[in-house]
């Protein structure tokens, strides 16, 4: 869907992005990550021409992005940023309606879409439609920011550290909702972050950048299990590596059918990392497991956390 071919961008003497090639398929959730100054944000902004690349080629749906008017390509890609950039003089509804309005949708269609999105992001339309951004909490503002990015049903979604300014609990809730939206809609999402846990939780593919170049690109499991260089290991964090690997897998993957364990049951969708924490906290070596409907499906054994030998 989006193809970068040896793309480069220099600001003065510094190469912000230096020969990056990357193909993003439809439905992928690609997370661009790296230390500050790695060029991740510049790379994202080149995709919707907020920053013009000066080397290489960028294709969107097979066509060179310079063959579109910048406004047109931006309206086809949702865009959300860290400080939300909500327009303080517009109501929540009008903020969400920004791109549909630019595209000239009829009013009833816009109104219906606004309500649909507010509901999707867990904001009661009746209560929130007419509010102004300053009347919302930080988390609610970011929900509106995400809804606004999704408003015109864009072909791709570009997000520049969308959850960076939120407290950890709100951030995790919104990450879960974004993951849900991605699974449900199959939208192509490109997200920039410097938070490795956010990347591991959300990405179908992580692209780790340093000084304008791609260091490694792969699934979260690949990055954890086969780091390409020391830089990758350092960036992910050597000490937490095992925990992060467990964080990628769910209880459902290791549960043994049958068997009755004592204690409060845990959900099959829980990550193994959280399960490990419960083993230690409760001082047990088996935990009963239930599925989403609350039916017992078996037990998780402490010894099974390690999984089959690699």
């Amino acid at each position, binding site marked *: 869907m989006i193809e970068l071919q040896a793309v480069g961008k220099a600001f003065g003497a510094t190469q912000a992005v230096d020969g990056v090639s990357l193909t993003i398929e439809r439905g992928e959730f690609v997370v661009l990550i790296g230390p500050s100054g790695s060029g991740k944000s510049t790379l994202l902004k080149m995709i919707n021409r907020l920053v013009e690349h000066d080397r290489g080629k960028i294709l969107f749906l097979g066509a060179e992005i310079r063959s579109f008017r910048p406004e047109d*390509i931006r309206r086809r890609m949702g865009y959300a940023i860290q*400080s939300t*950039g909500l327009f*303080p*003089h517009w109501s929540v509804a009008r903020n969400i309606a*920004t791109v549909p309005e630019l595209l000239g949708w009829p009013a009833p269609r816009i109104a219906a879409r606004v309500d649909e999105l507010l509901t999707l992001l867990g904001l009661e339309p009746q209560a929130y439609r007419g509010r*102004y951004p300053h009347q919302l909490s930080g988390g609610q503002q970011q929900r509106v920011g995400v809804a606004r990015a999704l408003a015109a049903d864009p072909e791709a979604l*570009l997000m520049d550290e969308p959850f960076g300014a939120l407290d950890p609990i709100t951030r995790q809730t919104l990450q879960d909702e974004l993951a849900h939206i991605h699974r449900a809609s199959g939208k192509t999402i490109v997200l920039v972050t410097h938070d490795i846990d956010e990347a591991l939780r959300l990405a179908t593919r992580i692209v780790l950048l340093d000084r304008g170049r791609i260091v490694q690109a792969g699934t979260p499991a690949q990055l954890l299990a086969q780091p390409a260089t020391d830089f990758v290991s350092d960036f992910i964090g050597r000490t937490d590596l095992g925990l992060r690997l467990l964080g990628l897998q769910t209880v459902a993957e290791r549960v043994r059918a049958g068997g009755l364990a004592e204690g409060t049951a845990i959900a099959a969708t829980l990550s193994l990392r959280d399960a490990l924490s419960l083993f230690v906290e409760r001082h047990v070596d088996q935990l009963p497991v239930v599925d989403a409907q609350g039916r017992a499906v078996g037990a998780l054994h402490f010894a099974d956390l390690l999984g089959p030998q690699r």
Partner: protein
Amino acid sequence: MPALALGRGGRGAAWIHNRVLGVLLCGGLGAAVGLAFLSVAPNRLVSGTGLGLRDLLGPAHALLGLPFAGLVLAIFARPSRAVHAAVVVSAALLLAGLVWLAGAEAGRLSGASSTLTRVSLGGGFWALALLVWLMAADAVQRLGLPLVQRTSVHVAVLMPLAVLLGAGALDQLSLLKEYANRDDVFRAAGWRHLQIVAATLLPALLIGVPLGVAAARSERLATPLFGILNVIQTLPSIALFALLIAPLSGLAAALPGWGIRGIGLLPAVIALTLYALLPIVHGTAAGLRQVPAAAIAAATGMGMTVRQVFWRIEVPLALPLLLSGLRVTTVQVIGLAVVAALIGAGGFGALVFQGLASSALDLVMLGVLPVVALAIAADAGLELLTAALQGAQP
């Protein structure tokens, strides 16, 4: 506001609840006793003898005591909305009563015989009227009303004065006699004054707003621009008028038939426009600069064109500061336009300077009062307009 009452009581005598009102009333009593309420002269050329409020008040004016007593009681009353409202009503009644008294006494003193006798308002009247107005304004403030209602109350307080004026109850005051003598001059001066203000504000906006936009976009332009505008602002207006006479006279000589003259409306409007630029440019630039950068980044990133970002995001968000700049400018120009009469531009200033030259204080007041009224009205009008434009916004 119980907390406020406690705080106020705690600092002094617990039974005094409204210190501001107390101070204003004491000042009013001082003015009533110490200053002349009216001054009577056999004709407009000699200076008159002063008459204090004591000399004028008779048993027939006992009713004036009622609103006064109400105001005195309010000092000691526990603050509540009802008390504040009572203060507003009492002050309005007292103000109307004072004006009515001045008008009625002027009629009695000048009598039917001599049309030359002049009864003018003394310092005591002006001080009392001002203090009573302040009492009303303070009480309105304490009521904490929204803007539109607050303005309406202010208008309502002044309404009895307009009625008295319209009904001819004040016609025997020398101020009104001066007005009657030069009814047409007054009207012409008023019309000319408005012309000067309009002819200043229009070019000031047309030049100032684009300059403000440019200053907000470019720091390299903003620094020298504000430097120049600040220097202009510090020039005394008379000096600026004088400075313009020479080049404009030269221009007039070079281009005969263009209607350019070194004195009159043109130099006045040019000078006033130069003064008006600073608040407008400043308001525009400050308004645009405080538009959140994230809003502009998001608007651009979602596919608004530069023009759409400007009109849909930047202009509405900058408008409140732009309008407050316009408010400052308008009030300033209405006042400065008085001085423009010195170079023959006309307006209410012509009355003021004519009065000053002939030591006719009433004529000066005839020029000053409408300027004050105009400035207050313009300020309130633009405040209401600003609020109306923001009405749909937070």
